[in-house]
């Protein structure tokens, strides 16, 4: 079996060496200017920051897949629902929205949840489907009766600029935790329903659920303005403009030989980076502690052979639910962090290719089941994803250089942006080729 072959080939130095190589890539990106690298610290740090967020997302996916073998393809949904938190927590309240329909809206949501709970109780107590259906129907009517007017009123409230319920005006950092909680709550509901399914069937269920969550975010304007986007979400770090106007900072930058604009960009990104690193390392610490104890052993056993694990007294369903919720919470935290970094909530941008499958690529390339692997894979793949934008066209430029001028050359040069995909695909295939079990395989 190949498994033992590669495992034995992996030396303990593998991970440090790869991380060092990655660091060198970023150093080059920050300092060297050529066809491959941009030589700007701002670019390098910007890529790194998004890479760190991807790393946290990848950690969440790795918990679900690497530890427990749950194939969650609804990552985009949990990211999105986490992203809702900064909007609802940190945005200033919208004038008049609450009065227009707030209490009624809360009532509607409570009625909705109450109906579901009641339906469940009725079903378990009586075991009659029609009774449950009746409760659901009645609940639905009550819910719509409360919900629709409230939504209309809220959306009518200054609809061009707001039209949503607004936020609570709390610090945005708080929203990271709330984002995790949102995603965890959603995952709990999803898990209760869908975790009876396995593997590919679970995959398609979660894929659908991800789509549903995004569809809700896109179409429920009262919540976060839907496709109209929410902008200017507060930041936990200073604004560049303020820094540029702060003489002390300008002096400080000049001492290091940077212009104010450049330095302010770097400074802000460094601030973000520290915040992200704290979260990332905290999550890794907790994850590693859990993984390197009987809990981790139990999870591996469940992943290996559910039937046997069940026969050995492990409650497989409960454990699956636990890990699904934990992993999703981590993804939700990442979602909230991403919105904080972007300063923008744009539900249309949540597309599964980018936010589900690219994350999966990160986990697998890094080496599933290994936390450090996921981090490595995430930062690396994100780096490549961004750099492919430049490398692709440069590649085709180099390739068609010797061709004679003419239609074909013009056509190829015109299609150069699409080399982004080819470049990305080739890189991905190459990495998988040379490390078929991931860069840092599970030990």
């Amino acid at each position: 079996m190949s498994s033992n072959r590669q495992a034995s080939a992996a030396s303990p130095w593998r991970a440090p060496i790869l991380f060092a190589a990655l660091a060198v890539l970023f150093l080059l990106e920050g300092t060297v200017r050529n066809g491959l690298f941009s030589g700007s610290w701002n670019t390098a740090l910007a890529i790194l920051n998004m890479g760190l967020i991807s790393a946290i997302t990848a950690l969440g996916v790795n918990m679900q897949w690497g530890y427990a073998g749950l194939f969650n393809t609804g990552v985009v949904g949990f990211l999105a629902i986490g992203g809702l938190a900064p909007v609802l927590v940190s945005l200033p309240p919208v004038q008049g929205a609450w009065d227009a329909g707030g209490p009624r809206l809360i009532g509607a949501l409570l009625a909705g949840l109450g109906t579901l709970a009641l339906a469940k109780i009725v079903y378990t107590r009586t075991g009659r489907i029609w009774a449950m259906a009746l409760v659901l129907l009645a609940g639905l009517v009550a819910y719509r009766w409360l919900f629709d007017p409230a939504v209309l009123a809220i959306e009518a409230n200054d609809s061009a600029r707001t039209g949503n319920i607004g936020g609570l005006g709390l610090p945005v950092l708080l929203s990271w935790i709330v984002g995790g909680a949102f995603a965890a709550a959603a995952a709990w509901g999803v898990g209760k329903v869908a975790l009876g399914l396995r593997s590919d069937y679970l995959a398609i269920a979660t894929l659908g659920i991800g789509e549903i969550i995004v569809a809700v975010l896109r179409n429920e304007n009262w919540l976060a303005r839907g496709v109209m986007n929410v902008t200017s979400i507060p930041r936990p770090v200073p604004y560049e403009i303020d820094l540029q106007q702060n003489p002390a900072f300008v002096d400080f930058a000049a001492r290091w030989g940077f212009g104010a604009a450049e330095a302010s960009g770097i400074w802000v990104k460094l601030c973000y980076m520290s915040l992200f690193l704290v979260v990332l390392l905290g999550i890794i610490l907790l994850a590693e502690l859990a993984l390197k104890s009987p809990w981790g052993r139990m999870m591996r056993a469940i992943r290996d052979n559910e039937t046997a694990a069940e026969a050995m007294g492990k409650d497989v369903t409960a454990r699956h639910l636990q890990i699904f919720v934990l992993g999703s919470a981590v993804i939700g935290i990442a979602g909230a962090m991403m919105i904080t970094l972007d300063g923008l909530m744009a539900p249309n941008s949540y597309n599964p290719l980018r936010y589900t499958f690219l994350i999966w690529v990160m986990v697998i390339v890094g080496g599933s089941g290994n936390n450090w692997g996921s981090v490595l894979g995430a930062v690396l793949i994100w780096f490549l994803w961004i750099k492919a934008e430049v490398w692709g066209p440069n590649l085709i430029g180099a390739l068609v250089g010797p061709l004679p001028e003419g239609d074909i050359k013009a056509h190829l040069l015109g299609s150069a942006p699409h080399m982004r995909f080819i470049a990305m695909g080739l890189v991905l295939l190459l990495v998988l080729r040379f490390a078929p079990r991931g860069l840092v395989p599970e030990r």
Partner: protein
Amino acid sequence: MSDQDAVFGHRGNRDRSVVNPKGRGSIDGTRRSGSVGMGQAGDPFLIGEGMTGGYGKGADILHDCTIAVERGQIAVIVGPNGAGKSTAMKAIFGMLTLRKGSVRLDGRDITALNPQDRVKAGMGFVPQVNNIFPSMTVEENLEMGAYIRGDDIRRTMEQVYELFPAVAAKRRQAAGELSGGQRQQVAVGRALMTQPSVLMLDEPTAGVSPIVMDELFDRIIAIARGGLPVLMVEQNAKQAMMIADKAYVLVQGANAHTGTGHELMQNDEVRRTFLGG
């Protein structure tokens, strides 16, 4: 796998999936065969001589192990668990690469052939585990046994059904839904369908009931006496020794004792330590 299947039946597809890839093989089907060499004078029909090797890059499991079977005879391999019996069978069948030694069949050196080509060269094999096509019907399983045959297979199939009436009744049922013993019968039936020039069986009687075991041994004797050499691994050692023309005791990948079945049965030490009293 009847006891697994039951679980998956109502909870979803787990075995054949990204999560738990059971159907995946362990043999590299892309490997090409090397050339066939000459055999040595006075060789038995099939011989794996001085075989040394192991799985992948791992440590050696076989150490200079020699197994042979003559035309018309039954050779039995016994030994403690993990002695390397299955490994020796796999080595003879080309399913792991040998570091030393050679395999010769019917006057040719086939050490470099890949398993597919050994099948074409006339070898038939029933592995110890994973030896049926679970989602295909019993009948299709038997048909797959006759995959390389071009002639009419109905006659042989009838013979197999006669031998195993229990599976004949289930010929339209998916083999994965059978009981453990029934699956074993299908697996042996599949190999019989091949009409090979040498038959290799890895614990054919594991899990089958005494009455079926007797039938099976009867059949094996008949086959062997018909000229087809049979090489098998057995844990039901007492019964197996009774019918063995040649018996090998393997211990830790090396030949420990060799002789006729009768001789080994007489050998007290062998009987006590390996054959269960």
